[in-house]
């Protein structure tokens, strides 16, 4: 978090618990990150590291009743200037923010739209609720939004059902829906993973363009470091439910401090490091998620691990704009 811009979203030491058949687990326990207005923060980490769960908790959409926020704060600055803790906000107040000030685009474009309502109705529904427009003008707004996300023949397609559209088109509809009430924060959870590469690039360009136009902050979740290089201002790296490193894109790519970030970048082809490739590069490696063990969670896989790494709690240390959760980050060569 840069000190001069007050952040739009500031998650502090978030802990999330799930009740499961084998008892309670905490897939997120130590997430600290922030998004400034107009900024794009990329949240990266391997599969199962807790990215989606973190983003859902911001919207209060953790699967109920199994999941809950059990610690930390999710501070959000409303348009009115008031800052609220979303984790403690009554559901009725949270509903007023959902779709209006915070919007979300999900990973699964094929299933995220309601199959029995036209795409126009689905966008208009949100617009009517938050912008207080009537039926006709809300539908008009839906049409404008489809136009804005570059869906051809918006006037006709506004009356179409999701199954009449391709995956790429549906994701555009999702983006149109998310943007329809000019949110100040957009959460995009792997919005392009399910799409093929050319469509991916178009969707990314679209999100960037709209972001510039309405100046919203974006929390962008992805596996893909190529995508990160292309669109993010800053990067937060997660491992096993914790944030292990945060920094600007340039710093993270040039001088990764945490051994896990380093490992991530090392399995990235050089081309992708320059942001030209869009392949998914982070393999899922079994981590010890959920059990709060002693010491650094990455120790079993860390080439730099020493005895002290196995005991106590490793804190997220912040210096200037950089945060790292590693005992030895100052000594390890990048």
């Amino acid at each position: 978090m840069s000190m001069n811009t007050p952040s739009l979203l500031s998650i502090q030491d978030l802990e999330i618990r799930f009740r499961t058949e084998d008892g309670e687990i905490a897939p997120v326990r130590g997430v600290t990150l922030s998004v400034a207005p107009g900024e794009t923060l990329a949240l990266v980490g391997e599969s199962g590291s807790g990215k989606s769960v973190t983003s859902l908790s911001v919207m209060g959409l953790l699967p109920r009743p199994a999941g809950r926020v059990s610690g930390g704060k999710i501070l959000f600055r409303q348009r009115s200037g008031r800052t609220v803790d979303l984790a403690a906000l009554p559901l009725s107040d949270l509903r007023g923010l959902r779709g209006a000030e915070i919007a979300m685009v999900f990973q699964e474009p094929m299933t995220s739209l309601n199959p029995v309502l036209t795409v126009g109705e689905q966008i208009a529904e949100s617009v009517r609720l938050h912008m207080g427009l009537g039926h006709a003008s809300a539908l008009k707004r839906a049409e404008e939004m489809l136009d804005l996300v570059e869906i051809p023949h918006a006037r006709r397609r506004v009356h179409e059902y999701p199954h009449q559209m391709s995956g790429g088109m549906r994701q555009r509809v999702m983006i149109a829906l998310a943007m329809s009430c000019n949110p100040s924060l957009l959460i995009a959870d792997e919005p392009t993973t399910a799409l093929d590469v050319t469509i991916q690039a178009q969707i990314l360009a679209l999100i960037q363009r709209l972001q510039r136009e309405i100046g919203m902050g974006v929390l962008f979740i992805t596996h893909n470091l190529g995508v990160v290089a292309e669109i993010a201002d800053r990067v937060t790296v997660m491992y096993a439910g914790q944030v292990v490193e945060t920094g600007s894109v340039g710093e993270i790519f040039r001088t990764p401090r945490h051994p896990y970030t380093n490992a991530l970048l090392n399995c990235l082809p050089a081309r992708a490091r320059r942001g030209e490739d869009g392949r998914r590069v982070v393999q899922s490696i079994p981590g010890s998620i959920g059990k709060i063990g002693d010491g650094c969670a990455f120790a079993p896989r860390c080439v730099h691990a020493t005895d002290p790494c196995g005991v106590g709690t490793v804190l997220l240390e912040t210096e200037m704009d950089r945060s790292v959760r590693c005992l030895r980050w100052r000594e390890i060569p990048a």
Partner: protein
Amino acid sequence: MWLKLGRRLGSLIIVMFLVATMVFFLTRLAPGDPAALMLGDQATAEDIARLRQVYGLDKPILVQFLLWLKEIATGNLGQSIFLQRPVIQAIAERAEPTFFLALFSVSVAALVGIPAGIASAVWRGRLVDQIVSGLAMLAANIPSFWLGLIFIQLFAVRLGWFPVAGYGEPGAPFMERILHLALPATVLGIVNSALIVRFTRASMLDVLSDDYIRTARSKGLSEARVVLRHAFGNALVPIITVVGLTAALLVGGAIVTETVFGLPGIGNLVVSAVLRRDYPVIQGALIVVAGIYVLINLLIDIIYTFVDPRVRY
């Protein structure tokens, strides 16, 4: 869509033909000579033979079948042996109580079953769910005659709110006749609501975990809107199916209830026709009930196209 409906109508005709064939041969396979039965013990062999000729019972069975098929294809269900009038007329006279009983029962079943099923799914595992599921289990296992007798005893005899039985004087005003259906329709509705509760609950649970429900919530919609518009809208197809099938079954299957409540409906007509081996009436009633069944199925298909755009295109 029209092509689909056309194909559907084609298969409907084939189904009706198969039904007719089965109805004809099954009723004829039963032992006993209706002519002899009709004339009683004192009849001579000559009398019986003459009567058999009048009703065409002396011809080879295949010829009888083909003649009969030709007749029903033109809408003529024949003449009742005992009632001295056309079968179609006998059925029409009995159609009103059966039709309204089925209509009211299925309405009661849907009005009780659908909201209960929705509540049960929304509050899954909670007290509401447990109560609803328990009651549904109970309703599914109560014999309708037993519940019928209890209702008669309580609401008709003890409290006097409703008529005890029957369908009023012939020629009584419509509303008075309809009032006679209140108790039987409630009984049938309750018994049949169990299946609708179960289907609604399962269908809603299925839909509530879909991705677009999360999207709907992410828009800031109220929970009521999420459940009733987004989830229920998608859960409708199986619910409509089970309501439609319930209606179809009620048309043919209300026999027990009609008997308990002394309603002069089609069920009643069939029972007495069976006892007297009145073949034309049995056959005619079965054909009509099967026809209604098939038509309701067609109707369900048509409703689908309104409910689910994916079927429409």
